[in-house]
């Protein structure tokens, strides 16, 4: 059996390792668009940018994996009838079973000035190296978009002494952590000296006459500001164009059943950012999770499941987990906080710096967010496999003796 994995990042690597470990002795081919062997992306916006980690530290161990790597090779099409993947150089790759794990790329600004020097995005190792070099000579950085990448880069740049303005069209930063806690994240960034402007977007990037170098920006409210480096952090776009016309169901992610098997083709599985998979904490709706842990978990499961018949495959059941490190806060989340209508503190340490909050939709807890409370999060992973009424979760919590402390009278 010839197993082909398209995507040579975390998910693709974990799939290859899992397939070999589960006894796959046939051919194993991993196709990757980037020129590198798999590397881990979380440090790119943090340790690597801050100079606390070197480029080679981000390589993921590839063991003595017996894999045929086809790097710097982009998949451009899929012919399911002939079981062929078309490649950018005109070549084809044949598969018996296929795992698609092509992930995302950074969304770019497409307005005036987008092509100026000094305008960056951050997704790949090359992006991180370029941004790190640019920050050395940057007086004022403009970060466009206050999501994970934007906030992490803003925090890293502050630690390097760079002046930072961060803007977002939304009313608060870090929307994936839910609608209410946003005030807290906004305060955290302002306390660290970030000029945070919310409810405003980017209209145009500016330069001096005849110069190709960015000098500032005009915003959607008509105001202008100066910046010598700009990070566009407007989220990610799916690398699924190559599957258009393949007949696979795209929603726009690759629609899968809980075993990561594509809905219209049991010979093809999907993993990581592009996989759209039913999630218990979303009430069984298909969700896509663009985070590290899901990519690792999906890869491991897809690698095993690809070796067996559809009816022998096991389901992905772990709730989504994601985190970010900004300043001295480790923020961890479980489930689907973005679906919540409000949040409620469940635990609060006496010093106020550590807490756990429930993310509530109707009466049901659909996620939790924890700040500097990793030990407690482990408990919620067991307690919150499916949506639970808030009252019931609180009752279970009351039986626990090792909580951070009671939040009575406090607000998140």
């Amino acid at each position: 059996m010839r197993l082909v994995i398209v995507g040579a990042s975390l998910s693709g690597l974990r799939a290859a390792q899992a397939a070999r470990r589960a006894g796959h002795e046939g051919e194993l081919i991993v196709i990757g668009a980037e020129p590198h062997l798999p590397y881990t992306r979380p440090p790119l916006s943090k340790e690597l940018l801050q100079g606390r980690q070197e480029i080679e530290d981000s390589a993921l161990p590839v063991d003595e994996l017996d894999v045929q790597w086809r790097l710097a090779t982009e998949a451009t099409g899929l012919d399911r009838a002939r079981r062929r993947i078309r490649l950018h150089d005109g070549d084809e790759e044949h598969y018996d079973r296929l795992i698609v794990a092509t992930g995302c790329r950074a969304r770019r600004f497409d307005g005036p000035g987008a092509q100026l020097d000094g305008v960056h995005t951050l997704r790949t190792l090359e992006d991180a190296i370029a941004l790190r070099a640019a920050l050395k000579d940057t007086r004022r950085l403009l970060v466009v978009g206050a999501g994970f990448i934007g906030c992490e880069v803003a925090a890293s740049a502050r630690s390097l002494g760079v002046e930072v303005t961060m803007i977002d069209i939304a009313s608060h930063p870090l929307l994936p952590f839910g609608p209410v806690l946003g005030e807290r994240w906004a305060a955290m960034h302002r306390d660290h000296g970030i000029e945070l402007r919310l409810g405003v977007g980017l209209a145009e990037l500016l330069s001096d006459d005849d110069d190709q170098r960015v000098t500032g920006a005009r915003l959607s409210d008509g105001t202008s500001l100066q910046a010598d480096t700009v990070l566009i952090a407007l989220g990610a776009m799916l690398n699924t164009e190559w599957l258009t016309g393949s007949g696979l169901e795209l929603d726009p992610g690759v629609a899968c059943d809980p075993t990561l098997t594509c809905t219209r083709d049991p010979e093809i599985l999907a993993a990581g950012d592009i996989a759209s998979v039913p999630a218990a904490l979303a009430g069984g709706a298909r969700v896509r999770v663009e985070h590290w842990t899901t990519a690792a978990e999906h890869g491991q499961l897809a690698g095993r499941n690809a070796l067996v018949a559809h009816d022998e495959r096991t389901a992905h059941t772990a709730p989504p987990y994601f985190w970010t490190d900004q300043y001295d806060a480790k923020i961890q989340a479980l489930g689907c906080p973005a679906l919540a209508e409000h949040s409620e503190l469940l635990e609060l340490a006496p010093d106020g710096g550590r807490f756990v909050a429930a993310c509530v939709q109707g009466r049901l807890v659909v996620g939790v967010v924890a700040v500097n409370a990793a030990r407690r999060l482990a408990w919620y992973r067991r307690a919150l496999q499916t949506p639970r009424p808030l009252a019931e979760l609180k009752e279970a919590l009351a039986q626990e003796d090792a909580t951070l402390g009671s939040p009575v009278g406090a607000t998140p």
Partner: protein
Amino acid sequence: MIKVHIDLNLCQSHGECVAIAPDLFQLDENDFISWQEEVDDSRRADLEAAVNTCPMTAIRIEG
């Protein structure tokens, strides 16, 4: 037996390993990791899942 190593310079207390095998890995009051350093072969699948799910690739197993 399988030997389990955690690089404490890398560990950032995500708790992935604790979620996978709470009897082998624990976080203390201060969110510092502690773990069982020698583990029976029957737990290999859990240990491999912990190695492959650690966001910091801080866990290594031997044997």
